[in-house]
């Protein structure tokens, strides 16, 4: 059991970077992680597990995580989820309220103090009750890209990935199905970063569970039938790297938007996507798989 200092006189040690912070500080002065998590964890008897949601900018990390947390809170599947602290509700609330108004939630800023963090106590009821404390930050895709391109640019990301018990790598299936290689390259960069961080020997494969989630799969329904086949065909670089270096990878497809409209006006040179209704498919399965690996 790791202990985290929670002494208002001497300050609080950050869960992510270990930096000592002044008493009363709400965010870590070093990495901007919320210190409320440390206070909440101190009352528990379990070590928390961090699950990272990673993927490039505009892939849908915020929407996915928001719906996932909302489903867990609504006891989807065999789960019971208890959010710890109001900050854990901010993300699902933002996502659900924006989608109810037929708009996507705003872009996540690169500034780590503006990220949403969620700390949930989750109980998997079957086959036998199992409690897990999960911390899931909603990181900005641009910050991930900057860190991957130049390690230690955003130390909070490096620390988070180092501490992660599992990761969900989101890839835009719609773009991949259209032949775009950008998502494939980004995913390879991301996994290569994780690979180098674990610094495993050439013949050793990394055990950390990675769920590759094909997002926006409503654009290419065929990837629901066989995600592995879809990845092998459309994201071949990613497939090969997973096969070579990662021992614990699974592939999933997911979609949260039932139908999408596009709005523009003659005066504007951009198009706004309008989510007309939500149709959740495959949101819970990657999470279920990750939890099963713990």
């Amino acid at each position: 059991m790791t202990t985290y200092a929670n002494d208002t006189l001497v300050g609080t040690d950050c869960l992510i970077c270990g930096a000592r912070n002044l008493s009363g500080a709400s965010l870590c002065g070093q990495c901007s992680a919320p210190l409320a998590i440390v206070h909440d964890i101190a009352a528990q008897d379990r070590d928390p597990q961090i699950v990272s949601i990673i993927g490039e900018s505009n892939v849908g990390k915020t929407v996915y995580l928001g719906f996932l947390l909302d489903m867990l809170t609504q006891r989807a599947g065999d789960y019971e989820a208890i959010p710890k602290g109001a900050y854990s509700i901010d993300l699902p609330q933002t996502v659900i309220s924006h989608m109810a108004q037929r708009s996507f939630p705003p872009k996540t800023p690169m500034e780590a103090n503006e990220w949403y963090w969620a700390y949930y106590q989750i109980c998997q009821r079957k086959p036998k009750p199992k409690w897990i404390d999960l911390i899931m930050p909603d990181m900005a895709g641009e910050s991930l890209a900057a860190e991957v391109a130049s390690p230690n640019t955003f130390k909070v990301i490096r620390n988070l990935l180092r501490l992660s018990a599992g990761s969900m790598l989101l890839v835009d299936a719609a773009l991949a199905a259209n032949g775009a290689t950008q998502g494939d390259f980004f995913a390879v960069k991301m996994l290569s970063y994780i690979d180098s961080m674990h610094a495993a020997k050439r013949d050793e494969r990394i055990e950390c569970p990675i769920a590759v989630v094909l997002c926006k799969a409503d654009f290419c329904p065929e990837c629901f039938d066989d995600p592995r086949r879809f990845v092998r065909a459309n994201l071949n670089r990613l497939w090969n790297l997973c096969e070579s270096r990662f021992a614990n990878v699974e592939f999933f497809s997911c979609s949260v938007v039932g139908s999408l409209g596009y709005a523009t006006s003659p005066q504007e040179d951009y198009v706004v996507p309008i989510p007309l209704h939500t149709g959740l498919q495959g949101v819970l399965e990657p999470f279920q798989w990750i939890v099963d690996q713990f």
Partner: protein
Amino acid sequence: MDRRSVLMQAAVLGSRPRAASPLPGQRMVSRSAGQQKAAAPSIPPMGGVRCDQAVFTSIRSPMGEGYRLVAASPGLQAEEKNEITRRSPSHGSLCDESQSATGLLSYRLASGRQVVACCTPAGQEHTGRGGCRVYTHLAILTQDDYLAFYSNPILVHAALALVIERTGPCLSPPPRLDPMFLAPVREPAAFPRPCVQTTWLWAMVSQLLTDNRMTILTGLADWRTWLGWLWFMLPRDVRASVDVSVGLKYAPARGMRLVVMPDQSAPGRALPIGKDVVLHDALCPPPEPLPVCEPWLRLLHRWWQEHRYAELVRLTSDIGAPADPVALSRLAALCEDLDRARTGDSAVREALVRRYTHFAAQVSGENHLAEQILAACEK
């Protein structure tokens, strides 16, 4: 800041913006991507200061999407790029998202070079997820080149805004962004003076000289002229060491010493709470300056009231290290004596000659002032 102030600043900088053209921010967003002028290097004006430039914004390109350094001069080092990426503003960072809003960012890089950035809204965020796109154009200067602007970020910001107005935002970046030329300052004392909240100037000089804590200042009515003069009040050595952001939400990752949020707008989701941060509201009376700063502030205040702006800028710009309150108090005493030498009777002058004939300087600039006192006494 109104349009008149922009024109006045431009006049000080020796460059004349077209009278009919709107403010930089308005101009940029009204121009569609196809109409943007290429971000070619600006034509070097006579005596222009050459500096590297970079653009940090959100565009979609084959190499990725979202906020990143989309273009940079070849002179930028990899470490400098990383630091700029870490400290630049991204989505939703502007306190005011109206099309005429402008933010400023100024900091010294670990490499020693100075970054001064102009942050403006540039149309809608390109993925259509709401909010404006934050466009940040950065000038990267050596400390020697920064001296051409009296190490004053407001002067660089004004020169940079003129360049952006002329070239438009760089939303279709060329493969290589050549260094740019910024018009240097001709007559800093002619910089427009703030007419409100001047009492806060002395309070903030005291704060920046004596307190290393991060300071957040809200409620400034006219930040450009106010901050321009705050910097002129600071000794040269202190100016480049104070990292400042204006019009941007607070973010610890930016590592600013002074965060100015002009209109008391939302300071971000979580303001830091703790003993290492000072929060000031310029709409309230300023705190009393520390006694250790009083001689220096008394001098600045008197010269300000006597409209001796050029002398004031010259004095502060000549002060190198150390520039602590004790050293400044010594300099203030010499300045008071210089004034006495100019206006006093023969008895006063004789006393001053006796005091300064074998004067032993302890602080840089003291010798020069002592010589001036003796010269004034001889006259």
